[in-house]
């Protein structure tokens, strides 16, 4: 072992890295960017989940106890919750609110709710959940159950209610409360993986072809074939389109593998059309291809390609509605989410997989993805102008 030789190599490596100013800058900027985004998202107070309540409960007047309005008591308890934003609704609005997502669940308290409880000593809650986000569904169910139990406990002094009961959700046994949950989308069989699966699919579909396209196009320049190609009658638009289609074919193969594995091996639930899922993932893969071609114009070597990951890919995962719903992000971060191509794919994939929506409902997201592909394609062709007259 020669310490001198080792130091010589160390010095040479340091010189090389230091002379690549962008690498040095990214070594500092990239972790700060990713950590800042993570901190902003993780430290954000959870946004209250909108819960609709249709309270038609008429209550009941009893000779000694006086008036009892169990529905109002539950409503008051729910309003106290900082996890929920209670919206009072009428019955006719329920489906519309669940469909557009402005209510993530609706609790329906019929007019004889109190009367029935007093008669049967058993309260049955009708809770309708939007259902596409299992985490939200669980939160709503837990909060509603807790509010109902608190309300029943408050009746203890009246000789009604079961103050000792801590929770109930199936109406079995001695518990005075049962929650009948119905799902507008999805169902009980949908778990968190079903909710996260569209994100996995989207990230994989875009990320891998992005790297493939970026490196392939970079090699075209570094091995000199781009210069040769530019000296043929082919114009920039043709070259980029040829690349897009060539790499797109591999993207399609990858998309097929991802879908097959997700649906048939991992048994991820999906309600909508498989063909539509294929279309969305394919479009996102084409976004990845074009993003890769465009990014390659800014890279001089493979090392610089890798540097694009924390700059272009990780923010997409953090801000694109993958794990944090955009509506739950801080207000000032939300515009960035809408600038992320993956957001539109995530939304469309979830709408198809979890809500069973079709093209008629998700076409705006498809249109945006197509638009992004068009813009990236034009920018890629324009960026080639920098190198080729």
């Amino acid at each position: 072992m020669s310490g001198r030789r080792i130091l010589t190599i160390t010095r040479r490596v340091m010189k090389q890295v230091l002379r690549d100013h962008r690498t040095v800058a990214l070594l500092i900027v990239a972790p700060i960017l990713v950590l800042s985004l993570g901190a902003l998202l993780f430290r954000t107070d959870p946004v209250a989940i909108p819960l609709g309540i249709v309270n038609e409960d008429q209550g009941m007047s009893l000779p000694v106890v006086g008036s009892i309005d169990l529905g109002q008591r539950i409503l008051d308890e729910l309003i106290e919750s900082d996890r929920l934003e209670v919206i009072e609704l009428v019955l006719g609005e329920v489906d519309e609110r669940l469909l557009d997502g402005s209510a993530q669940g609706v609790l329906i308290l019929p007019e004889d709710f109190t009367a029935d409880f007093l008669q049967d000593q058993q309260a049955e809650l009708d809770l309708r959940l939007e259902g596409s986000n299992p985490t939200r569904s669980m939160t709503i169910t837990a909060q509603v159950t807790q509010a109902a139990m608190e309300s029943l406990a408050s009746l203890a002094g009246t000789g009604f209610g079961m103050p000792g009961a801590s929770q109930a959700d199936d109406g079995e046994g001695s518990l005075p409360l049962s929650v009948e949950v119905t799902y507008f989308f999805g169902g009980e069989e949908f778990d968190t993986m079903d909710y996260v699966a569209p994100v996995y699919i989207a990230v994989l579909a875009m990320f891998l072809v992005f790297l493939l396209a970026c490196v392939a196009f970079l090699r075209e320049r570094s091995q000199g074939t781009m210069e040769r190609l530019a000296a043929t009658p082919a114009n920039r638009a043709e070259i980029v389109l040829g690349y897009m289609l060539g790499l797109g074919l591999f993207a399609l193969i990858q998309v097929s593998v991802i879908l097959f594995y997700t649906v048939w091996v991992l048994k991820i639930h999906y309600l909508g059309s498989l063909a539509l899922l294929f279309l969305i993932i394919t479009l996102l893969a084409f976004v990845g291809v074009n993003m890769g071609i465009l990014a390659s114009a800014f890279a001089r070597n493979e090392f610089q390609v890798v540097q694009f990951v924390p700059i272009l890919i990780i923010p997409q995962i953090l801000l694109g509605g993958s794990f944090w719903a955009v509506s739950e992000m801080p207000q000032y971060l939300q515009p960035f989410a809408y600038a992320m191509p993956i957001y539109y794919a995530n939304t469309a994939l979830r709408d198809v997989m979890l809500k069973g929506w079709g093209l008629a409902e998700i076409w705006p997201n498809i249109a945006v993805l197509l638009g992004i592909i068009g813009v990236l394609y034009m920018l890629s062709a324009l960026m080639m102008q920098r190198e080729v007259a």
Partner: protein
Amino acid sequence: MTDFVMETRELRKHFRLIRAVDGINFSVQAGEIYGLIGPNGSGKTTLIRLIIGLLRPTSGSIQLLGETMPNKAVLSQVGYMTQASALYEELTVRENIAFFADMCGRRDATWMEEVIALVDLQDRVRSPVRTLSGGLRQRTSLACALAHRPRVLLLDEPTVGVDPQLRSTFWSYFRELAGRGVTLLVSSHVMDEAERCDRLGFMRKGKFLAEGTVEEIRSVRGTSTLEEAFLQLAAMETEGGAH
């Protein structure tokens, strides 16, 4: 319409303060081998890239096959061999040649076989380029430039890094092509290659120090070799610059 296959007028290309090409006038006739001779950094590659349309001139004009460059349409009749071999490593020799023929929209199976025979690559057509030696790569690169039966060939230092035997073989190819009416513009910094050209331009610092046939340049300078003529011209240019 000009009678020349290639012609430049007061051609200039400046990169900020660097005058890579500085007022070049020259013309090449059909079937002629024209040599761009000069040391590294004299502007030969920039001049070739201007002619083929990969760079836009700062000023001046270029006519190639009767069209003002840059003009993509003309390129289907022009072959270009870059200084580096510039081939697709994963593709075979034949696949590389066929690719560039297709890109120019002029794939002709008979001609392709002729080109492969011309550069003596019959035994290696199925070999991936990554398995080839430097000399074989250069031959493949030349074959790619010829793949679409071009009327004009622009060859940027085609013999750099090539052994003397292969260099001699390359010049035999060039002469044969010229005999078939192909016009060649060949850059080189090797003086013995200059002797093989029909006409040549001595380049230094983006300018032509002399232009004409080998005999013309030698007799004007009164030297026995081109190398002496070039050194004399370079020295005069340096003195002129110093004054």
